């Protein structure tokens, strides 16, 4: 016997959560694009998506975030900090790979300086994940040693029922249990079996790839230029990635006052490493692509003991020239180690 949430009750759940002061967020598709967005009614959710175009990252680490305000006076500059709004949220229907991505980035945002913008949002957000029952050609969580029903980073995991009329509920954390206590009366006990999780083929052997990447001589391999020749240097892959986390500070304002903002940045941009002198240590697009792969599978795990990739496949799915991590790691796994 497991606890079941019926699809028909979801709208009531949404209403209940909203009454309790939570912003309810989930996968939403409009005419042209999909993302995790706030809803008022359950009908706005679209669970048929493999995953939204845009990752869950932006809910915790927005594209642009005001950090502080300043005013310039005759003799001095006054500043006042922005704090992230104390908003309580529940994300219903996150994908396991997106939730994993948040867990991957937690150590990054906390290792030396605790980034309050990130952690306050993490602390006040309940993540309800739905296990995947379908996958597309770009999904690759299994290659990253994750699974389509991974619990990593989730507060509650839901498994779709075979009859497609609801979900089995598995509460994972206290935060998850608290949120579901609000709707306890809307859950039932049941024995309806869960639908089988999606079969995601393993596309490459991660260990082989990592071994190759860790060999210093491969840093200068001609492989990098060959694999990235068609890269046009846009930042789609990094901006859609649930784990890419680079940012830049920018002051915006006039003579009298302004705002310092934290904006997404990307290692794909030529400007990313450009020195004031004009020298660019990553002068070519292949050096930038190498950096992205090395960072995710060599440097980041070297520091935090986890790969900076959750296998969502958005980098390949949305690439204008059909590149991506999958192709690169597949190619590496065929090379002599």
């Amino acid at each position: 016997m497991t606890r079941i949430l019926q699809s028909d009750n979801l709208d009531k759940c949404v209403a209940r959560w909203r009454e309790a002061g939570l912003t309810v967020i989930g996968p939403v598709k409009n005419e042209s694009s999909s993302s995790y967005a706030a809803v008022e009614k359950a009908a706005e959710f679209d669970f048929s998506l493999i995953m939204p175009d845009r990752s869950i990252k932006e809910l915790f680490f927005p594209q642009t975030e005001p950090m502080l305000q300043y005013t310039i006076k005759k003799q001095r500059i006054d500043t006042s900090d922005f704090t992230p709004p104390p908003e309580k949220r529940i994300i219903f229907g996150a994908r396991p790979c997106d939730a994993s991505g948040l867990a991957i980035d937690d150590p990054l945002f906390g290792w030396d300086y605790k980034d309050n913008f990130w952690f306050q949002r993490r602390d006040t957000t309940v993540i309800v994940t739905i296990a995947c029952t379908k996958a597309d050609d770009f999904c690759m969580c299994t290659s990253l040693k994750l699974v389509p029903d991974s619990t990593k980073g989730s507060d509650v995991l839901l498994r779709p029922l075979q009859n497609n009329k609801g979900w089995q509920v598995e509460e994972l954390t206290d935060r998850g249990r608290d949120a579901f206590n609000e709707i306890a009366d809307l859950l039932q006990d049941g024995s309806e079996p869960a639908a089988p999780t999606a079969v995601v083929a393993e596309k490459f052997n991660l260990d082989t790839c990592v071994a190759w990447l860790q060999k210093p001589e491969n840093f200068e391999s001609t492989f990098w230029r060959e694999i990235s020749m068609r890269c046009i240097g846009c930042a789609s892959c990094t901006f859609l990635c649930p784990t890419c986390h680079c940012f830049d500070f920018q002051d915006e304002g006039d003579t009298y006052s302004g705002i310092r903002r934290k904006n997404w940045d990307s290692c794909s941009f030529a400007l990313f490493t450009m020195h004031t002198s004009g020298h660019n240590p990553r002068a070519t697009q292949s050096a930038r692509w190498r950096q992205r792969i090395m960072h995710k599978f060599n440097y980041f795990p070297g520091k935090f003991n986890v790969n900076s990739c959750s296998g969502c496949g958005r980098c390949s799915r949305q690439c204008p020239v059909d590149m991506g991590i999958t192709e690169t790691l597949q190619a590496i796994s065929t090379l002599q180690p």
Partner: protein
Amino acid sequence: MAKIGVFICHCGENIGAKIDCNKLAATIGEHPGVAVSVEYKYFCADPGQESIKKAIRDNNLTGVVVAACSPRMHEATFRKACAEAGLNPYMCEIANIREHCSWVHTDPDMATEKAADITRSMIEKVKRNNKLQPIEVPVTRRALVIGGGIAGIQAALDIANAGQEVVLVEREPSLGGHMAQLSETFPTLDCSQCIMTPRMVEAAQHPKIRLLTYAEVVSVDGYIGNFHVKVKMKARYVDMESCTGCGDCITKCPQKKISSEFDCGIGKRTAIYTPFAQSVPNKPVIDKATCTYFKNGKCKVCMRSCQINAINFDMQDEFIELEIGAIVVATGFQVQNNAVYGEYGYGKYPDVITGLQFERLASASGPTFGKILRPSDGKEPKTIVFIQCAGSRDPSKGVRYCSKICCMYTAKHAMLYAHKVHEGKSHIFYMDIRAAGKGYDEFTRRAIEEDEASYVRGRVSKVWPKMSKLMVRGVDTLLGKPVLIAADMVVLATAMVPQPDAKEFAKTIGIAYDEYGFFNEAHLKLRPVESSTAGIFLAGTCQSPKDIPDSVSQASASASKVLALFSKQTLEREPVVASNNEATCAGCWGCVLACPYNAIEKKDILDRSGKLIKRVASVNPGLCQGCGTCVTFCRSNSLDLAGFTEKQIFAEVMGL
């Protein structure tokens, strides 16, 4: 850290009565970066200027804003004061709170508020001003005069007589231009040759003038004070050094029926020739196109006739390069081809001729030795019809503009005709008589009253031959009646048009031209002899139709401009010029196209081994006039304009 001094001027009551200057000074004193903010009755007066200088020294000011009258009024005054106090003069800006504020607004509060905005905006600008230095350009003191007509000769002589070197280039074998073709000149009826020839000789013999005839300018690079000019010396096939100008070769040349350009086709010349008897230099050239030897490979009669072996059929075109500081363009005009008027029968009936052909007939040194004779049968015409505006002021077939000289020379033709053929009758069809000029209207009156020219106000619709006569049908619009005249000769007052290759030539030397091909002056009223390119000046009819006095005046004006330029070793210019960031320039050349001054060049960036890395735009500060059109075009924001930089304007807007 910026330390800006702000000096708010009351201008007596002019500003002070409307704007609360005390309040303004206090408000501005709170602005970031302002070290001094004071008001005073008259900052432009000596005590005012002294107080600014003192404030600069006492406070080590990095910039100054004077909130006062228009910068067009006193910018120079205050910049000079700053310089005297040791501050770079370009670190001073003017906030215009008089013309743009106190004088034009009624509400004192709103005016004060606006004045504060204007001042703040200038403070933000001046914080980003750069310490500019006037641009010094070295000057090569040698002028090039292109065209050896009266305008070119005048300009060359004026410059040379002032002691500066001149290179005078003429593409025909002789100096003279159109003026040498004329018979007598209005309004004095003095003989053109008589006043022209001495000028030609003077130019040729002047120790400061290097004369290059039968030569063409093929390229001009560089900029004011520093032009590099390439001149093609066309092969004359006659050695200029040894030829004595005896003329034996001309006499012996078997080709005697070549239509003479100088005589406008009315006379003939030989294949080895001088254009006219008084040519300067008076040494012949061989016309390759008509020479028997060049056509058939046999002849060389001239060579055998030459006692001193001056003739050399193997001569080649040569190119010489010149370093030039200033250029006077005096390339003259052409007459329009009147074949466009089929109804007048020019080119079809031999006795329909142009005004210039009539000049040759009337010229004492012309093919008829000054007798007016019909080209068809050599008889003296008893009735001549002159048609004015045959091309001018006619948008449908000719040109829209007035050729300016035709009214006068037609009156002159009628007079000369009356003096030479006493019983002759002349009829002149005209649209208006334009006789503005010293002695001009008196001159046309004389043609009508003393020499009995019959002026008919109206146009001619058709000319056709009947027996030995030319029937001319026109209309007298004053009488409202058709007119039919049986004439012996018809003379067309043909439009003056630019040289056929004028537009191409303008591109070669880098100056602007109008829709017709006349060269454009920098400003029609205030800079009428300067071209749009610094260091290139215009003289004579290459700029617009003109008579001789006007051409000569303009030539002298150009010469004075050249001499002013040559009065110093170097030339100082306002440093408001564009510059390019070569690192970010993409080399798309949009700026090159957009620049009105051809001031942007293409520059190769090479690596250490000399291999081309990329080509970028490079602004020549000598040519740049500082309009900033290129800056706005530049998509990568690589170009910028000193004095009005992107940073400055951004800050001005953000400071409002």
